[in-house]
């Protein structure tokens, strides 16, 4: 019961977030970039729901507009990683053992370096910026998807229904495309839903380090970085973007887990 309600709340929150990303002006008319030095660091009030930051910008407007970059980068990175990772992992998993073993070594290497470090290095290669962060985060998570996809491919290929289909005289590729790929895709999609959270966290982390979208872009990680020096006298500058990140990640993973339970319940 409570779980149901929680899932519903999470779903609604994510929908609101998507709406914020698509049409922020529905939620606020304030300009997220407009600095007004005469109203710096104002606490939350009717005029400024979430208060104002050091530049006198409306924190609420910035949180709302920030949904686009955080969600956009998080979701697009996951989708790209999902598609590339699934196909690659499926190919590797379907390949003969020796090929599989060699390619997996390389994938293992990518996994040996912490995800966040990979993203950092990619940003070092490409330079900071919102687009590069998206690429970095995508590249950082692809190996994980490849690994899972490859594992699932091998596991599913060993399931009896695959052999049963082969024993009908169907070509191996047909069987793999029909029986293995969709199942791998489905399991990874669920994984990806949970994974959105970690990409959003990575994006925020890079933003916090000043490697993401630069000022004055409304990006949640960057907002947290900006607010940390006024922590003692203006809690609202960091609280709201922090909450936004946390709620997004928690809701995404709640929904992802629920999906996973459903999908894996099928097995």
């Amino acid at each position, binding site marked *: 019961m409570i779980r149901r309600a929680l899932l519903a709340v999470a779903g609604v929150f994510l929908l609101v977030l998507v709406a914020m990303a698509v049409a922020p002006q529905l939620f606020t008319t304030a300009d997220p970039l407009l*600095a007004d*030095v005469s109203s710096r660091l104002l606490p939350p009030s009717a005029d400024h729901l979430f208060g104002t930051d050091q*530049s006198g910008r409306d924190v609420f407007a910035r949180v709302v507009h920030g949904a686009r970059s955080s969600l956009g980068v998080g979701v697009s990175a996951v989708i790209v990683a999902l598609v590339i990772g699934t196909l690659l992992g499926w190919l590797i998993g379907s390949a003969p053992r020796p090929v599989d073993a060699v390619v997996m070594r390389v994938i293992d290497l990518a996994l040996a370096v912490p995800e966040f470090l990979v993203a950092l290095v990619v940003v070092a290669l490409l330079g900071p910026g919102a687009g590069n962060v998206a690429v970095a985060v995508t590249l950082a998570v692809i190996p994980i998807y490849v690994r899972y996809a490859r594992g699932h491919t091998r596991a599913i290929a060993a399931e009896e229904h695959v052999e049963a289909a082969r024993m009908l005289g169907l070509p191996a590729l047909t069987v793999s495309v029909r029986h293995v790929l969709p199942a791998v895709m489905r399991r990874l999609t669920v994984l990806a839903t949970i994974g959105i959270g970690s990409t959003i966290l990575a994006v925020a982390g890079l933003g916090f380090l000043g490697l993401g979208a630069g000022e004055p872009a409304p990006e949640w990680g960057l907002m947290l970085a900006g607010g940390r020096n006024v922590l003692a006298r203006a809690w609202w500058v960091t609280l709201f973007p922090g909450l936004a990140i946390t709620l997004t990640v928690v809701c995404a993973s709640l929904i992802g887990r629920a999906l996973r339970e459903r999908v894996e319940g099928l097995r």
Partner: protein
Amino acid sequence: AGSDAPASGGTGSADGTAPSGELTWAIAGATLSEGHMDPQTSQMDVTAMVQRVVFDSLVFQNADGSFSPWLASAWEVSEDGRSYTFTLRDDVTFTDGEKFDAAAVKANFDRIVAPDTASAQAASMLGGENYAGTTVIDDTTVRVDFHEPYAPFLQAASTPLLGFYSPRVLTESLDKLKAGGPDVTVGTGPYVLSEYTADQEIVYTANPDYAWGPQGQKTPSVQTLRVSLVPEPSVRTGMANSGEAQLVSELPPSSVAELNPDLTVDTKAYPGMPYSLFLNEKYGVFADQKVRQAFELGIDVDSAVESIFDGQFERAWSVLGPTTPMYDAAIEGTWAFDPKKAEALLDEAGWTGRDADGYRTKDGKRLSARWIAWTPIPDDRTALGNAIQSDLKKIGFEVVREALEPGAYNEQYGPKTYDITDWGFSGVDPDYLRSHLATDGFQNASQVSDPAVDALVAKGAETVDPTERAAVYTELQEWNAQHVAIVPLYVPALISASAPSVSGLTFDLYGRPLFYDASID
């Protein structure tokens, strides 16, 4: 002044008691570990600030700008202003036991200008191409020659950037100087660098043999000076309030309000170039002087500086800061915020169209300027940038900001592919305008190229007579106010807070703490 009492060789501080106690001094210092421990090569202010306690200079610059003897007991400038002859004290030793003499001076100066040293700032203060060489006349007499007359030299010689390493380290540990450390960072100063943990702390221990302070001070009374490297300003503020550090420097202006009332706060405006925007007149929209002027008038500098820096910093009017010698106060108020006039200027310049986002256009092109800055950018400058951006948006002028890490910044700075960039520069001698305004100046970010300006900065460097020099720099300051190559924004200050237990702290002209007479109870 000079010292009357010869060094006894024993320990003994200024007031005759043995040095004792420990003073923790928290500074940002993030860059120190990145090869900036060597004042002879680093262009970072922090290097000079902390290493002052290790490196003494030939002369000392007093609060009024005059010079008094230090390691040199006397000096003489030749008629033509090209030769400086110093008479050195003969009782000075480096803390590794080496003797300080004319050869040591020569070894240090030659090292600074050697191409391999790749020194940015110290070499320039030593005249750069203008430096002709140092000659050892005898053990205690040394002469520095220049190709052209070079007036700022005494001032330069008073900074730690032209301080002296023990000749032994110059031969034995040359490649380690940038990284620094005990037995590497060795000078003649009141303190010995005894421990260094990169990114964490530097521990200085009182030099027991010290007897040649700028005012004749001897071994300082604080035994241990522990410099805590804390890049986070909020953490430094916390350390000041909790008493974890007895002295905290580089405090952000916004934190002053949060400091405990019993702390002593010293705000010392940096002399030199205020924090400014450089408008690149050879690249885009700033080729037009009217656009530059409109840009300047469109920014509400007063309210931005006042509120962002909590009233701690002054707004700037001129390319010389108000505490810099030869500052021209007449410029104050001449280009106050005037959006109407700015709009009129832009109209005149032909930027009359408007696009969907409300920005001005001319021939279908948006009035837009790209501002590059190198990371990390402190919060308050970010806020200032936001304010500038918002102000200019109101007159239809778009500013696009890019924060670049130093490598990427260089790639744009080299070929000068930007409209705006920013920095401030601390220097006590207005000669720094030469590198900022001369056609071939390496800091000429605005790409000023005007023979009249070139002649003026050259004259400034050569002229020794103070009034004549002042006239030259007044003219330069007025030139910029008209031409608008550089938009000065605010005068940064070094804000330090010290605990009630600390006394006797003094500050040099750069606002940096000096510990000769400091004590702690």
